[in-house]
């Protein structure tokens, strides 16, 4: 055995351990969602049990959690669209134009993410109360857009910078306005980056709990906020918690699979090249 293959085996072993650590909780979650209350609470954790489907209808139909799924989709979807609609043009300007204070302003976008989220929770709450938007989807969508915006600006600047300036100029010579060149040529060329950014925005918004909980605890609450509702005075309904959690993670897993190649490129390249 050469040293090369020895190292390779060690690398595989380390990787295997990492995968097991990362995946086990999800597997356990999945199994739990199909367990009866008895199996869940049994003192010895077991891999073998008689599966039941009951948890899913119990929570989604019995407890009317289905609309929460819809809320999650609306919040994540619209906050992603809004972040891209504002953030992508901003990132394009950062990538192309020179103006005084450009780098400072660019860094400012990042600093909005440096403070702990809870620190702006009270101002946000007061703002949305004053504007009458509290406990609506709008409030959560706007709150999520506020932190996704910085992500979009940071990631998309790198993607736009990768596109040669001459592409914009060629489109202008071909008869487009500056805005037309951006919409018609630059944006389609940046589509892979845009998709990766969108998925990341969607995931962050989908998983967000704190702002959603504070701003929409009742009517507009998404799935994440619904889970604590299953902690009842009579005990925690672990099977139903798991069922909600499985449904909540499913879109993320699918999305991540779809764009993982672009996602890795976007996160490294976009950040470094900016």
């Amino acid at each position, binding site marked *: 055995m050469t040293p090369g293959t020895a190292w390779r085996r060690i690398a595989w072993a380390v990787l295997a351990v990492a995968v097991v650590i990362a995946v086990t909780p999800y597997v356990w979650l999945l199994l739990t969602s199909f367990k009866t209350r008895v199996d869940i609470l049994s003192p010895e954790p077991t891999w073998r049990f008689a599966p039941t489907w009951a948890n899913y209808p119990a929570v989604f139909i019995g407890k009317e959690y289905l609309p929460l799924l819809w809320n999650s989709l609306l919040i994540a979807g619209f906050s992603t669209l809004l972040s891209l609609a504002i953030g992508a043009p901003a990132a394009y300007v950062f990538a192309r134009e*020179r103006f005084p204070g450009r780098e400072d302003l660019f860094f400012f976008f990042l600093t909005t993410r440096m403070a702990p989220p809870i620190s702006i929770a009270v101002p946000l709450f007061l703002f949305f109360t004053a504007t009458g938007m509290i406990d609506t989807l709008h409030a959560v969508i706007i709150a999520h857009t506020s932190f996704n915006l910085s992500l979009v600006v940071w990631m998309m600047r790198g993607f736009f910078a990768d596109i040669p300036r*001459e592409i914009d100029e060629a489109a202008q010579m071909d008869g487009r306005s500056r805005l037309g060149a951006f919409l018609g040529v630059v944006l389609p*060329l940046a589509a892979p980056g845009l998709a990766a950014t969108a998925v990341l925005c969607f995931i962050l918004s989908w998983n967000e709990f704190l702002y959603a909980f504070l701003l929409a605890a009742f009517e507009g609450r998404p799935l994440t906020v619904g889970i604590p509702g299953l902690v009842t005075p009579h005990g925690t309904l672990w099977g139903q918690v798991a069922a909600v959690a499985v449904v909540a993670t499913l879109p993320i897993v699918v999305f991540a699979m779809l764009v993982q190649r672009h996602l890795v490129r976007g996160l490294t390249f976009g950040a470094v090249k900016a």
Partner: protein
Amino acid sequence: MGVALRGIRRTFPDGTVALHGLDLAFEQGEFIVLLGPSGSGKTTACRMLAGLDVPSAGTIEIDGRDVTSLPPRLRGMGMVFQNYALYAHKSVFENIAYPLRVRKFAGDAIRSKVQAIAAMLRIEPYLHRKPAELSGGQAQRVAVARALVWEPAICLMDEPLSNLDALLRLQLRTELKRLHRDLRKTFVFVTHDQEEAMTLGTRIAVLRDGRLEQFEAPRDIYRRPASRFVAEFIGRPAMNTLDGEVRDRRFHAPGLSIPVGERSSGPVVLGIRPEQIEIVPAGTEGAVPLVLDVCEPVEPDVLWFLRAGDRSLIVRGTHDDATAESGRTLHVRFPVAALHWFDPATGARRP
């Protein structure tokens, strides 16, 4: 249709001046070459014409109409970029069709126009490909097709051949010349390569440090360079230039003294093209003996490098002129009619 740049000045935000009041006017159907070393302002001038850059002062007129503040799309010009600037997500066909689609041409008009220009540039077999699947030469042909397909009055080209390898560059050069002849459009071509400029241009604008040195037909520039800079920049090998002074009907430079006829005395720069120095038998009237340093055969000619003081004089001759033996003395004559004179301080041409 005429184009005129009047007093174009461009100062960049960092304070560098790319153009110091450029005046340039040309007519419909010309092949104008903007020639100069890097930093001469040639690309800036081209971008001003395109509308991709805005002059700090001065005006640009097309047919007497001031277009200085018009955006590129309203100027009626096509442009070819050095790095091709093709749309990677569109097929070759769609790349070429793009200016037509933006300008709302009908579907069959688009098809026939794209086919026609693709035939001219011999890229028909690649119309369904993506730009990434093209070689450099093919990609640049597509870029030329895209710039010309909607028949703009003026086609701008910013160093379009510079990214191609030597052989391809020659091929495409000839094709551009043919295209210009057939289409009768105005071409404005930016390059730093004097050979490209000489072979392509109907007129060449030689730029240096943001100023126009000379704007004439290639032949006239070659025969009567307006300055020492132009003299040395145009023609390969470059014109021999020697700093010296005229005294008693002779030009004196270190290691060299040649008869030049009646001239006023004083310091001056003498220039002579390598092919106009004559190698003559010893004892010929006016002949100057010089020692052969090295010789470079550039078949069918030979370049003789002769020592004159600490300088080297290049003579373009044939194998018959002498034997290539380093250290030998050759006798050369400088025909008075072939001499160019430049001001030693300003470099301007003197009569």
